[in-house]
């Protein structure tokens, strides 16, 4: 039972960044823009979030307040970075995959350049502990409290709140419906007076917002509040894209897909603690490959009737109506 507690407690801080970034990718793609730059947006948000923590950590502020403020900084950074993608792919009608790749390449280099110049290291190192032993009240609930609200980070609770908000925006607001229309049939949306350009800008900006926060949460929950230019966010942005496709561009399914991947990854990194797996004597590297292999297996079975937005990746051209 202790192993189960351990796995779930360790899984959630990993699942939340994946979930938020995948939701971000979803908002961008249902609006019609393929956001391959998620990896870069995450690192950009994580970098500025960590930089903020670095400058404020000696002020004696409550760690959880610092986390919330850092989150805001990361969100703003993410939005700003995503505007570069929006400008290229919406205003300039660039190839979205290429613009995204360029943005992914830019950020690790910038982080390394900046950190080497000002810190003499490969990234930003902070010494604030965001770890929470037990959340008051919620942590006292039997079983559930121990699973979800003990030995965790505030990021888990915030992430779940963002999940609920995303579901409401996606299904219950006029904006959500209009955004999806722009990804399915932009010309039809345009013909009833919806500005496709504005909607797509908003969609990618939401992905920048969630991507930046997701990156910061990754650095808090996985990297102990540090950011490194070499390892970046370890492909979480790409994994989030896979989670989004696995989740068929729908928030509920994305949620379970994120949990699934986070579980596999946690399992891969805690093989020693599980006697059964440890006794099998399989090289640990195979477990590290497991999330990626599982992605491929799942995609192989689900992609035949993919629910991808029909107009994704195609720059909107009014004159083709």
């Amino acid at each position: 039972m202790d192993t189960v507690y351990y796995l779930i407690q360790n899984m959630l801080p990993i699942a939340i960044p994946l979930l938020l970034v995948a939701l971000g990718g979803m908002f961008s793609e249902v609006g019609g823009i393929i956001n391959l730059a998620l990896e870069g947006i995450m690192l950009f948000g994580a970098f500025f979030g960590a930089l903020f923590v670095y400058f404020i950590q000696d002020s004696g502020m409550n760690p959880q307040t610092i986390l919330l403020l850092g989150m805001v900084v990361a969100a703003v950074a993410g939005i700003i970075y995503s505007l570069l993608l929006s400008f290229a792919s919406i205003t300039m009608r660039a190839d979205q995959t290429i613009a995204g790749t360029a943005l992914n390449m830019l950020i690790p280099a910038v982080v390394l350049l900046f950190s080497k110049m000002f810190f003499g290291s490969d990234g930003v190192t902070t010494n604030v502990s965001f770890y929470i032993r037990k959340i008051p009240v919620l942590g006292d609930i039997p079983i559930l409290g121990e699973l979800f609200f003990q030995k965790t980070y505030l990021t888990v609770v915030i992430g779940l709140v963002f999940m609920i908000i995303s579901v409401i925006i996606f299904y219950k607001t006029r904006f959500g419906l209009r955004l999806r229309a722009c990804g399915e049939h932009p010309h039809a949306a345009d013909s009833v007076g919806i500005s496709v350009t504005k909607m797509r800008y908003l969609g990618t900006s939401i992905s920048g917002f969630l991507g930046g926060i997701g990156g910061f949460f990754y650095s808090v929950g996985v990297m102990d509040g540090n950011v490194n230019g070499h390892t970046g966010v370890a492909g979480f942005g790409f994994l989030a894209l896979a989670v989004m496709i696995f989740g068929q561009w729908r928030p509920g399914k994305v949620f379970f897909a994120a949990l699934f991947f986070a579980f596999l990854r946690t399992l891969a990194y805690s093989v020693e603690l599980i006697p059964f797996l440890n006794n099998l004597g399989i090289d640990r590297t195979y477990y590290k490959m497991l999330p990626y292999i599982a992605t491929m297996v799942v995609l192989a079975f689900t992609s035949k009737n993919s629910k991808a937005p029909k107009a994704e990746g195609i720059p909107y051209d009014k004159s083709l109506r």
Partner: protein
Amino acid sequence: MEGNNSSSKNKNSIVQFLNKIGIGSFISALMAIILGLVFGYLIMLFAIPSSANDGFGYILFGGIERIGDVFYFATPIIMTGLSVGFAMKMGLFNIGASGQYTMGMFFALYVGFMWDLPDGIHWIVAVFAGLVGGMIWGLIPGIFKAFLNVNEVITSIMFNYIGMYLVDMLIQSSGAMYDPIRTRTNYLPGSALIPPLGISGSNVNFGILIAGLIGIILYIVLQKTTFGYELKATGHNKFASEYAGMKGKTNIVLTMGIAGALSGLGGALSILAPSAIAGSSMTYEPINIISQAGFNGIAVALLGNSHPIGTIFSAIFISHIQRGGTLASLVGYKPEIIDVVVAVIIYFSSFSMIMSSYLGKFIKRLVIHSNKDDKDDKDDKEKNNLEEA
């Protein structure tokens, strides 16, 4: 009036001629490069204002003194660039060049260490092994795309990670290949090394000639063969080419296989190259990081507009500014500045075609403006014609 007409005709034919030899894409690549370099200069000015000019000078011209090294480091990115460009011709985005490159490198290393072959044959077999390794890793996204409808971008990314973990594990578990004290691979036996070209002060080897030759072969395949034609046709319009009876699925698998083989060859050519230490090979450090060569290949292919010959030149250019970037550390800059410049160049080149078409329209307007008299004449003539009718 006759004279005026023929001169404007000439102008049109010049424009057509320029378009034919791809001058439009050349100008747009040039614009992206200039913007990228300007951005790099601004960063340098911001970082250390006093030595920005010296550092920028190194980036622009530093590579010329080390031309051998420029070719040496251009070899692998020519191959990954050709790989990405070749897949791009069919409308496939091969972001998996990194994984294929790593796989090719591993196969070459395996043959280099494990097979005992005579001099003169050993390195050739090792290079071919690299080709096979990359091809296997390229075929997988192709098969997933063709038969299971999985986007090749996501498959490639996943197999970048799977390949990287697999190769690192296999190397670390092999006593013959891995030196646990230096945490790197051992030096390859001399017979597995690609022979150097014998230029003093540099390790430039036959690899660059192989890469150049393959670029030319690819150009011929794309321009002169049915397969090349089908490939480009599918890239232009998938549905029309299928309607015309081209085997789309087979071609997808084949294209990705070839693209993978090209990247794998890049990995083999880089790891089998002799290094600066006499009689030793390049080494690989398994630290669970995806190889940068594949991503640089994307930059190279974009800059070369996916044209095989253009790719060779753009790889040499990127390698040139990378050497310059290493030299810029003499005046206090970090070599990462080049990665920033390259990324900015790709960003701008993703929409530079549109920028240059705007520029083209602007220039056209200027030309039309200066030739207004011509136009007036023409208008008069048309009016006359109408009146006659």
